[in-house]
């Protein structure tokens, strides 16, 4: 099955690719992977006053994994932590028209958002 136009667009013009400073207290980092295919994804959020003001990703994987994480960074920007936590992988599947074999890529993106948020929370609760 061919990739949808939206996947190809994100693949060719990934949004928010790159890294933020992992040590910054305002930055939450989520790193997740798909053990079945070996794809790895890093998603970072910069949070200020409970709102996500910036997001970056770095994904080494298939087109769908790259598109899912690229889309995720677009969506989370401007959202509160609670709102971002609500993002469901099915929304990513619908937006990108992912075929069933690529659903795990969207799960990865959802997991990465959640991991980044909990990393941020952990970082900020201790002090």
């Amino acid at each position, binding site marked *: 099955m061919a990739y949808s136009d939206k996947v190809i667009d994100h693949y060719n013009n990934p949004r928010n690719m790159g890294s933020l400073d992992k040590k910054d207290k305002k930055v939450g980092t989520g790193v997740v*992977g798909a*053990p*079945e295919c*070996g*794809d*790895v994804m890093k998603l970072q959020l910069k949070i200020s006053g409970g709102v996500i003001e910036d997001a970056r990703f*770095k994904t*080494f994987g298939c087109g769908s994994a790259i598109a899912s994480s690229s889309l995720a960074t677009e969506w989370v920007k401007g959202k509160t932590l609670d709102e971002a936590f609500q993002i469901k992988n099915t929304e990513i599947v619908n937006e990108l028209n992912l075929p069933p074999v690529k659903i795990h890529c969207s799960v990865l993106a959802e997991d990465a958002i959640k991991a980044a948020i909990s990393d941020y929370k952990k970082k900020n609760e201790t002090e």
Partner: protein
Amino acid sequence: MEILSQKTGSERGPFFEKPGVAPPCWNCASNNVKMYNCVSCTSIQQFLHDTDYFTIFNIGYTLHIDPENLEKKYYELSRRFHPDYYQNRSKAEQEISLENTAFLNKAYQTLSDPFKRCAYLVQLIEGDKNLPTEVPAALFEEIFEIQETLETLRDTDESDEAARSALKTVLQNASEHMLQFESEEKAQLDHLFTKWDALETGRKERDFSDAQKKLLVQMKQILSHAGYIDRILQDINAVL
């Protein structure tokens, strides 16, 4: 997947070995079915729908497998089911011979590889549960670093021989380190296999002990790393 339904692998054996274990012949309803063939009408018999790879080889749910024994059993069963022998038989029998052969081949391939064998056992016992997606930070960091080096190499101009060969040396070392890590993981898995098999000899019916379930958790951890290691090694090999 409900595979470990009532009896253990060794009791069901190749399930037609003992009389009364096999269901009646699909063709003539005779109860006299032995080793995948009906004694009355000679029809070939299908694997039970809920059989599993361990059961058809009659090796119990053990994780250390003697490769020679496995191969020997594989050839025996292959001969028994080979589609060539059923060319002049009914369409239904031809289909069964094909299906059994396909199942057998998959079983042999899966059980021949320690990682696949272990993953299969985990899946049998726990159902279709996914492997854990969290990975030790150290491994992830290493993978990201290697991937970034690979990216740099791809972006480095073909003419810049010096830079390219320096990057390739870095990748070569990374690949060796990954192989080292992989062999350590294999040794750990092997150790868990030994523990599992020791507990397996005393097991009754389908009660896997808590100790065995704990071992499964540890095995899953190692299995979940294998995909990343394979992938990164492939990616490195593609450019070296």
